[in-house]
């Protein structure tokens, strides 16, 4: 097990800059999640760590050792490939045994059998061991690919969306299992996903990747509550965060935010928060983007004090709750509602924003400025870090 460091790693495929100066420092025994949209360069980072891709610039270090010139076989990494990459001519058992039968990582046949039994049991596939990959479903193949990595004791586990093709129930149980297993094995694990839930549930820390660059690194809470820009804020959270423009104006004892709802100007008072106020003053803020999570948007179907009017664009269930989307002119507001409401499309809905939960972003650069209650979230992140 080892600490994995990448320093300013760059990699291009032809004219496409796949990685543009990636620097990460994964601690020993950490569960590190790479999270980002498709084509962001997550898999290329794993390939650089495994030695399959050669970075043009930058350093890859395992512990204190520079690994740039070490071939994949000698790096002792276990990798789960996104497309499984099982050996088609071998049974599941032989697939899983393959690393332990190579000259470099040789183990006795008894030990191999024991470890495969354990891995098969954890991945719930004891009945599949004698089959060929062509006789497996995609979910089963994915479990075999996981099992092939788990039987080893490598420097680092590299997992490329290993749960993406499992059915929902199995995925949830695997997620729990995986986290526990990683803690028990005491192994470093770098995990690629584009599932927000997986990233939050598994990662000790999460790195947000976009267009070959690291956008933000932090614990799940840090990134969720204090996203460094609007891109990250939109990536983290389901349903997506609401972001809309606002103008800021000073009042007698504080500030107001004015937003446009269907052509009408709505004035919302910004509650008092010394930190927020000082940032607004400091910047002489006139315009900003406001971000607010759907759970902080309240709705009513009757006119109420402090609520503004809008119309329902859609109402759909996302499992144990539903999302109401309200039309507000240039943008839409998402809010959480219980299931089973009788909501008609285009009917009136009255909305209240809980302004003491908003995040302020810069109007131009879309960068994070400040949020309400920032100190308590910093403290929360710090306490998690200590654990």
């Amino acid at each position, binding site marked *: 097990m080892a600490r994995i460091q990448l320093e300013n790693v760059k990699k291009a495929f032809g004219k496409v800059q796949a990685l543009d100066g990636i620097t990460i420092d994964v601690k020993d025994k950490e569960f590190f999640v790479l999270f980002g949209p498709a084509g962001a360069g997550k898999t290329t980072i794993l390939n650089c760590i495994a030695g399959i891709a050669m970075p043009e610039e930058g350093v890859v270090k395992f512990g204190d050792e520079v690994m740039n010139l070490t071939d994949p076989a000698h790096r002792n990494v276990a990798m789960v490939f996104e497309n*499984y990459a099982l050996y088609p001519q071998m049974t599941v058992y032989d697939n899983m045994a393959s690393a332990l039968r190579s000259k470099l990582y040789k183990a006795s046949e008894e030990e191999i059998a024991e470890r495969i039994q354990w891995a098969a049991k954890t991945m719930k596939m004891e009945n599949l061991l004698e089959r060929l990959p*062509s*006789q497996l479903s995609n979910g089963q*193949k994915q479990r075999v690919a996981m099992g092939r990595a788990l039987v080893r004791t490598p420097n680092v586990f590299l997992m490329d969306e290993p749960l993406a093709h499992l059915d929902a129930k199995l995925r949830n149980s695997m997620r729990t299992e995986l986290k526990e297993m990683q803690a028990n094995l005491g192994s470093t694990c770098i995990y690629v996903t584009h599932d927000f839930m997986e990233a939050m549930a598994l990662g000790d820390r999460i790195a947000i990747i976009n267009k070959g660059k690291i956008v933000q690194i932090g614990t799940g809470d840090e990134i969720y509550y204090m996203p460094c820009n609007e891109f990250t804020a939109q990536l983290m959270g389901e349903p997506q965060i609401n972001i809309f423009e606002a103008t800021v104006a000073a009042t007698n004892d504080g500030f107001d935010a004015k937003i446009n709802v269907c052509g009408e100007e709505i004035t919302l008072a910004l509650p008092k928060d010394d930190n927020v106020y000082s940032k607004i003053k400091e910047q002489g803020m006139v315009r900003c983007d406001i971000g607010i999570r759907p759970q902080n948007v309240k709705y009513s179907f009757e006119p109420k004090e402090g609520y503004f009017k809008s119309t329902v664009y859609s109402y759909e269930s996302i499992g144990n709750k539903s999302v109401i989307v309200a039309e507000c002119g240039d943008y839409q507001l998402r809010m959480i509602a219980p299931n089973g409401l009788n909501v008609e499309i285009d009917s009136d809905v009255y909305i209240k924003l809980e302004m003491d939960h908003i995040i302020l972003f810069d109007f131009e650069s879309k960068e994070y400025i400040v949020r309400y209650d920032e100190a308590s979230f910093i403290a929360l992140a710090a306490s998690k870090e200590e654990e």
Partner: protein
Amino acid sequence: MKTGKQRALYVLQNFLLIVYAIFALFPLIWMVLITFKSDTEVFTTTFLFHPTLANYQEVLLRSNYARYILDSVIVSGGAVLVSVIVGVPAAYALARYNFPRKEELAFQILSYKFAPEILVVLPLFMIYQKIGLYDSYVGLIWVYQLISLPLLIWVVRGYFEDISVEIEYAAQVDGYSWYQIFFKMLVPLIKPGLVSSALLAFIFAWNSFTFPLILSSNKVYPVTVAIMKYLGTDSAHYGQLAVASTVSALPAVIFALCIQKHLVRGLSFGAVKG
């Protein structure tokens, strides 16, 4: 229960197949029959004749037929062997690596098969005379590469391209060296393609006539050229000719039957996400 219409269709289908089978097999059957006929009976078209083994005795025991067969085995087998040794790595390179003018190179290899043999054989004859490859095993094996190598490279390349490159990566990560990966992981996957193309290459080389006719004379005497001997200048011994042809067809048939079980496709399916 089958309806009358279905039954009629079934009968018709089988009838047509039988007609085709007779059409396809009759020349071969006739050839085999001729081998048992004496020269005087060769031209009779009835199936009644006095069977004799004289032709077999004449060809197999009293001529150099065994040597001709051996020569054919050496040059055809040698040609296929060289093609496999050279062609498999070439196919791998064409499938996996990117280098400038790759497709042009692949096409050029294929283009060796475009020219009729008779077109290239004359210049080759003169070159072979000059550099001392005329009438030698090496010379024939070399020129047979024009027949067998393009075929093998193109078929095997397709098989390599079907194998996901991640399988190689996975094996590297599992601790295997390139050679181990090649022989343990890749060769089993390309085997059906390799076997079938090698078999075809062998048959083409075995049946090749123009090259050995012009490029060899006494020292190397493949069976295709040797058969001509039985068409004597004054008399044609059709019975002996038939024996020589029949026996020369056997090795390819036997070879094909032996490796038939390796000709299964579909091994490489199911390895990666489909």
